[in-house]
């Protein structure tokens, strides 16, 4: 086989594998954004759990019943209700981690380091076979004239391995399409519930703070020591409401990006457009955390409460 033959094969292979390589890049980008989402959702669940415990602990001392048996009944029922909700949030966290395991396994396959090793090994095999053919045809003369072909052989091996991986990943996505689509759709519902639970608890916390720290001392003519600072703190809390709607919109974009991959409508521009929004997810909850540091915990010291 001469250099022209190699060049022709290489050109054809480049044409066939160019799309495959592009698909691998798109798959890698969507998988990476999905992993970032899984991480952010996990943080949001953690923050929501913290708020659930804080609100529970702040609600209980308010309006304590007069009778001892009523106090005990209230404490038990409230504990049960809070634990019910916390258990469901923990369950959501587990299923989110499970989805993360899938994305990690997919990412590991996409970025499989053995791809390069496999390409080298195949290159060696093909090159060695070519050497032996040459030696036999040329009565074991020197192989030097064929050395230049070796780099083409290695490039071809690399392209073949990339095409093999692209096809393998395409087959996996076809196979897992229904499961992952269903899981992503259900997870969007989980996100809606968790976000609404988060917002509800935050609003409850604000109101409890307003009542006990601002309203009661003000209306009852108690000395207003530190009252001005607490009122300013309350205004500050109201100003730093996190935009959870944006988080949910971004998840929708991520869902669309997966739908495009599953439909095999691989359009790098549209996928990148979706991901540019979805990538805003990254660090969203981290920002949220810095904002929610101002959530009232002054009613009761909650520093000793363990978060599962």
């Amino acid at each position, binding site marked *: 086989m001469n250099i022209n033959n190699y060049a022709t094969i290489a050109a054809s292979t480049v044409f066939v594998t160019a799309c495959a390589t592009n698909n691998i890049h798109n798959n890698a980008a969507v998988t990476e954004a999905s992993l970032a989402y899984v991480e952010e959702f996990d943080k949001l669940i953690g923050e929501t759990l913290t708020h659930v415990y804080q609100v529970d602990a702040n609600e209980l001392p308010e309006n304590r019943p007069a009778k001892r048996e009523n106090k005990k009944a209230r404490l038990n029922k409230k504990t049960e209700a809070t634990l019910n909700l916390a258990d469901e949030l923990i369950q959501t966290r587990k299923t989110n981690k499970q989805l993360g395991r*899938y994305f990690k396994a997919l990412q590991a396959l996409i970025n499989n380091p053995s791809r390069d090793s496999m390409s080298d090994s195949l290159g060696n095999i093909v090159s060695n076979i070519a050497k032996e053919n040459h030696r036999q045809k040329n009565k074991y003369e020197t192989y030097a004239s064929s050395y230049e072909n070796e780099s083409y052989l290695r490039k071809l091996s690399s392209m073949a391995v990339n095409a093999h991986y692209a096809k393998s990943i395409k087959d996996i996505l076809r*196979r897992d399409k229904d499961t992952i689509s269903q899981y992503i759709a259900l997870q969007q519902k989980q996100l809606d519930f968790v976000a609404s639970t988060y917002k509800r608890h935050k609003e409850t916390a604000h109101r409890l703070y307003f009542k006990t720290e601002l309203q009661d001392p003000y209306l009852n003519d108690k000395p207003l020591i530190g009252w001005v600072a607490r009122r300013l703190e309350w205004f500050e809390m109201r100003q730093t409401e996190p935009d959870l709607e944006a988080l949910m919109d971004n998840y929708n974009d991520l869902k669309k990006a997966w739908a495009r991959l599953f439909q095999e409508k691989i359009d790098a521009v549209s996928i990148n457009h979706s991901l540019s929004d979805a990538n805003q997810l990254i660090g969203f909850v981290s920002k949220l955390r810095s904002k929610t540091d101002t959530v009232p915990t002054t009613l009761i010291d909650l520093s000793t409460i363990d978060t599962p």
Partner: protein
Amino acid sequence: MTTHLANLVDKYHNLILLDTENLSPEGKEKYVENMHKLEIMIPNLEAKQLHSVNQQVLSETANLNEAIDKLSNTALSDDIYLALCNAVSNSIDIIGSLLGTAL
């Protein structure tokens, strides 16, 4: 959040800020009773709604686990294939060197 739950939350949030100082003892007792009910009903309803979605997700978990296993097996097959390629490559090297020595 369903309308029923949203209504309960609205009622609860309004009740938190109610000035109870001038309520009669009976009114105060009723207020405390309502607050207790809402403080238990709301998280229970939230848990119930999340539970229904969690159950749907759990019904898909077996399929997801299967998909994860298949992904891991694909990676394993690639590793086995790589080992095979290395073995073949080494064998050819050995044969090449033997032929070289023989000649």
